[in-house]
């Protein structure tokens, strides 16, 4: 067993084909203290067959982004903007214009969603098998073929279909329930799987087992995965691209390797130093000073300026637009190239290579 692996193969077949386009999506809540903008004019493209990791600290707007992708923002939150879906065959359409009936169909058959805490997603009075059957039934799918596919998915997730299908949710461990939920979400063969902190509250070993199974499922069924988490190291080993959120917006988007290797946004650079990580030297690690902004009162200029060592007048006054760092790598910072020079970090200076000296 070696931990070090060869470089990942570059972009799979379709990774430049658009699948989802989010345009100027905002979510706001009216509060006593004023309007709270918890997703702030976000635009991003998601490509077919990629795994995109969305990372950011809690409260940065990740779950709001996930809800926006499925037009599922809960009241009294108000979503504006567009989410355009490009089906594999057929014309693109704005999912915000779908009828309730079409939206319901869309949510399982095109895009499916998995949340943290499988136990809450399952109905405690129904067996796992009944959940599978009900889903097939509600979408007019053929039961026998559908259950056959369900069993295959359960097996793919290292679950025993006979045992799991007849169990009630509480009879499964957290890790088993979460895997059963992933199988259920893939039952109607969606093209996209959106996962919001799907492994939080599980042991690290189970989290890693799940991400490794996900990358297998991704290969096997050509699913595009949007994996949302605060846990950067976890998704860094899984994702093709990373999208970093700070204060209700994306601040950096790029190939995972490039973002880790030489992040362009000062926040990303600070975050990479602030996360416990076996690859970095211990005394390099450092927390990020200061607090993130309140959604009711986000500064006019760059939302990171109160914490940023590079902030100047321009940063306080003008909100930075996305700039191209390279072909597929973008960052929203006025001074990204300077950041790369003056805010150093290293992740791989001392990768602990695992030595296995068996009983010698």
């Amino acid at each position, binding site marked *: 067993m070696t931990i070090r692996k*060869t470089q990942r193969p570059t972009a799979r077949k379709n990774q430049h084909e658009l699948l989802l386009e989010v345009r100027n999506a905002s979510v706001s809540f009216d509060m006593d203290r004023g309007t709270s903008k918890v997703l702030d004019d976000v635009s991003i493209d998601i490509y077919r067959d990629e795994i995109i990791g969305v990372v950011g600290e*809690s409260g940065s707007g990740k779950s709001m982004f996930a809800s926006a992708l499925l037009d599922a923002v809960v009241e009294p939150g108000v979503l504006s903007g567009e989410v355009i879906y490009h089906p594999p065959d057929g014309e693109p359409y704005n999912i915000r214009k779908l009828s309730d009936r079409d939206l319901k169909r869309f949510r399982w058959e095109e895009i499916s969603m998995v949340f943290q805490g499988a136990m809450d997603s399952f109905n405690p009075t129904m067996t796992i098998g009944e959940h599978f059957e009900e889903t097939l039934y509600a979408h007019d799918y053929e039961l026998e073929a559908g259950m056959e596919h369900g069993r295959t998915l359960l097996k793919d997730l290292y679950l025993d279909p006979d045992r799991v299908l007849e169990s009630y949710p509480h009879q499964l*461990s957290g890790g088993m329930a979460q895997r059963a939920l992933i199988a259920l979400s893939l039952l109607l063969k969606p093209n996209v799987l959106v996962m919001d902190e799907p492994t939080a509250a599980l*042991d690290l070993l189970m989290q890693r087992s799940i991400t*490794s199974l996900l990358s297998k499922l991704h290969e096997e069924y050509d699913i595009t995965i949007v994996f949302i988490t605060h846990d950067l190291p976890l998704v860094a080993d899984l994702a093709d691209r990373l999208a970093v959120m700070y204060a209700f917006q994306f601040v950096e988007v790029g190939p*995972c390797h490039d973002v880790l290797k030489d992040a362009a946004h000062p926040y990303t650079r600070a975050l990479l130093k602030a*996360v416990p990580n076996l690859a970095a030297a211990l005394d390099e690690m450092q*927390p990020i000073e200061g607090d993130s902004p309140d959604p009711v009162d986000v500064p006019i200029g760059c939302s990171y300026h109160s914490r940023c060592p590079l902030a100047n007048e321009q940063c306080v006054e003008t909100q930075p637009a996305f700039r191209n760092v390279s072909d597929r790598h973008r960052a929203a910072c006025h001074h990204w190239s300077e950041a790369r020079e003056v805010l150093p970090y290293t*992740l791989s200076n001392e990768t602990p290579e695992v030595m296995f*000296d068996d009983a010698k």
Partner: protein
Amino acid sequence: MTRSEETVVSLENVGVEFSNASLFQTLRGDREVVKAVDDVSLDIRENEVIVLVGESGCGKTTFGKTAVGLQRPTSGSVKYRGQDIWDAKDGNGDVTIPFPEIRKSLQIIHQDPGSSLNPNRTILNSLSVPLKEQYPQIGTEEREERIYKLLEYVGMKPASSYASRYPHQLSGGEQQRIALGRALLMNPDLILADEAVSALDVSLRIEMMDLMHDLQREFNTSYLNISHDLANAYYFAEKVGGRIGIMYLGKLVEIGPAEEIIRNPRHPYTRVLRWATPVMDPDSITEESDEPPIRQIDIPDPKNPPSGCRFHTRCPEARETCVNRVPQLTQTGETIESGVACFRRDERDEYWQSDEIA
């Protein structure tokens, strides 16, 4: 041993069994017994940091609570500075250190800091209670002064503003600082922090761990931390020269200096945990499904643990002999500080002649 005077807590062959049985079940004879901790020994020294790592259900919390005198072991002994904790409690023999003093010296911080703070009390009130109990002689003014000073220590400035808040007015990280502060008010020798760090957002963990290290220097406390995350464990232990202990289904299967555990994991289970720990190195990012190096990804039911080496149902190296014999933790280093419980450590063990089952 000459070290004994600097040992704060010494656990010897500790076992903790729970039996979950109703009267009805007992009558029918199907009592369910869980051996949450099975024959574990550990010395925790002054100023020492030990992090216990393992999957949920493997007995970390139970063992930790036993170490701080909150859980009575069903076998073995737990001593605080040489005094058996439960003899002190029961008044058995010559009690040199009274139980209340032991309890005060051994503190705990829970995973969920919110639940350990009374939602209807201000922080000042919450912190006053234990102080009043322990030091009834000090006046209100001095008490408040101590609390403010402590809040400043845990980085909550201005202290008077934080002291007047209610728990729901604090973030998770701030609540965790309060919990740490409250434990420190008792000037303890040992703090058990049960998943106190992993409950926080990844970007806040370093800050919390650095704070705990600073306070250790200030107050000379030892820490017994519990975590399921080897990267946190490594940071917390290695930064101050501490140890990591790996638990599996009630057993301590490997222990050693943090650096050793990370760079040279010896027990097959430690290697699995090492595999599970992401390495955020852009040059070694892997993609293709690299399969978990275990035979089963689910942990067996602790109520019905496997025979022999408890890891044999998942171990990639398991052989027939592992099904029947229980490996003992044997010393790997020169000192008593490290050990591994696996037959593979002994080149003369019959393991090597046994048939593979993996």
